[in-house]
């Protein structure tokens, strides 16, 4: 089965406060895509963390969007194109920046254009609800996502990311 051209990959854990922002947004995107005609253009994936094998999910895509919660990151959200970067000290999880060079090393070709939508969170404790502040950030990110999905092209997303 051919891959959908656009991959949207949300990262987070719904049981840990604002870490739920990514999965919550992905669920809303899924709901809205189901109602539209372009759902076969997108594949939506959710996981707790990005891991090395996720480069295989990125293969054969035209666009990749990572959605994640951030700590101490710009509010309400930040949309940017991550630059490939070797990460010296990381956790089990990889940030998108580190996934890009792994893609190139494993698959021997440049990764597809990838973007990050990082929604600022405030609290990440086990069992907490999404904080009121993060809920506001989520609403702003959701509105922004409408613009992303309205024109899912490299040119459009580069412009939204402030790329020349």
């Amino acid at each position, binding site marked *: 089965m051919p891959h959908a051209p656009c991959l949207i990959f949300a990262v987070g*854990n719904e049981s840990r406060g604002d870490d739920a922002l990514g999965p919550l947004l992905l669920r809303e995107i899924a709901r809205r895509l189901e109602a539209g005609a372009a759902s076969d253009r997108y594949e939506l994936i959710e996981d707790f963390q990005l891991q*090395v094998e996720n480069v295989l999910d990125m293969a054969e895509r035209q666009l990749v969007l990572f959605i994640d919660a951030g*700590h*101490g990151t710009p509010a309400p959200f930040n949309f940017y194109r991550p630059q490939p970067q070797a990460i010296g*000290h990381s956790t*089990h999880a990889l940030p998108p920046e580190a996934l890009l060079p*792994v893609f190139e090393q494993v698959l021997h070709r440049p990764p597809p254009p990838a973007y990050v939508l990082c929604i600022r969170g405030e609290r*990440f404790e086990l069992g907490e609800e999404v904080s009121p502040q993060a809920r506001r950030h989520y609403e702003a990110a959701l509105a922004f996502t409408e613009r992303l999905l309205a024109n899912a092209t490299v040119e459009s997303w580069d412009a939204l990311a402030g790329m020349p």
Partner: protein
Amino acid sequence: MTYHLETAEHPETLRRVAIDPVSRVEGHGKVTLLLDEDNKIHQVRLHIVEFRGFERFIQGRPYWEVPVMVQRLCGICPVSHHLAASKAMDPIVGAHHLTPTAEKIRRLMHFGQIMQSHALHFFHLCSPDLLFGFDSDVAKRNIVGVAEAHPETAKQGVLLRKFGQEVIRMTAGKRIHGTGAIPGGVNKSLTVAERDELLKDVYTMIAWSRDAVHLVKKLHDANPALYNSFGLCRSNMLSIVGHEGAMDLYDGKLRARDADGKLIFDGVDCNNYYQTIEEEVRPWSYMKFPFIKALGKEDGWYKVGPLARVQNCDSIPTAFADHERRDFMDYAGGSPIHASLAFHWTRMIEMLHAVEGIKELLHDDDILGTELMATGERKREGIGVIEAPRGTLFHHYRVDDDDLVTMCNLIVSTTNNNQAMNEAIRHVAKRYLHGHEITEGLLNHIEVAIRAFDPCLSCATHALGKMPLKVELVDAAGQQVHELSRGL
């Protein structure tokens, strides 16, 4: 056996070195090294703050929700919690003996989990240290550096992990939040197409896993002085073992050996774990310190995980892995090995066993069966014990008349290894950290010791921007004399 973590006579005169948080392990960890006036290490404390609240989080939930909910406790080994909770809930629904299909599907799922976790841990987290050296350029000491210098090794690491994830997806139903195991059995078996898809690649995975064992063995042979002594931590060893003492990662009875390899106890029913193991609370840590009751808290602490399991069992029931186990046992002339880096060797032996086990189960038609659930007389209490990738994992629940969980006790692998990790860090710190300057290379030696155990520090929180590393040296008067920070 003695330990000296709390024995400084005048702690008020000690200098404190804090490493907060520990990088390349999950979540929030903090290492406090207390130095004396001569800059010698007297105390080490590994603080892990994220374990608080797990049991409370689960209390009050309906029992049938628990096997799914507990997967959120850990982003690396959710399947281990899923299976341990399901095992614990089996007697609560009266399933005292699972159907062959249910047990074999669960075992298949568990092998997939062991495989993906061990592959991630070794190739992603530890191979950079082992292949480039602990003091090597930090910009290269990562998975990307491994991919550049050893592209085939890095590629195999990615694909081994992917294969393990596929086994989980097919047995659990989904990549995450799987529902495959349920109280009393499983809710799906494999289709012929799924089995055949896995069979296509399993022999390649076995070959690569054998290569991985040989790679670690070569590293030990190349530098025995380092590998035989780094993070040395002589301790008791605990695990479950299966029939006739064979390695069994899914089910069995508790066995413990002392540091010399002599049996402390054997054949203990997991339902009686609390009669042999006690948990101590210390004021400076959220994480408990378990110990073997019969030996007391001074001498009863132990290590769990691959290094304990491979030396605790009498055999491994798959051919290649058992051959490698015997090689490993011969390496030290039959005496137990307690050096922390040997965790990696045994971890790769277990990965090989897991892939061989997957292959055997894929050739067993029971995994295609339709008898998925067992029933029987219900109980109000259940205990599930499993050998998770990092070590023995205990789940213990009681439910009330409304089927809600009223009591939950979890002893996760990292808790079982708590004292042993402190000891290993202390050993490394005593050897490598002297003087006032904390270099990145020195810090990494401590992190290498922690990574050998692979603790799940916080489990599944990972938010972008959340993991800077800060190191500070504070003098006896509480003044900071040196600080070292690094971000992601």
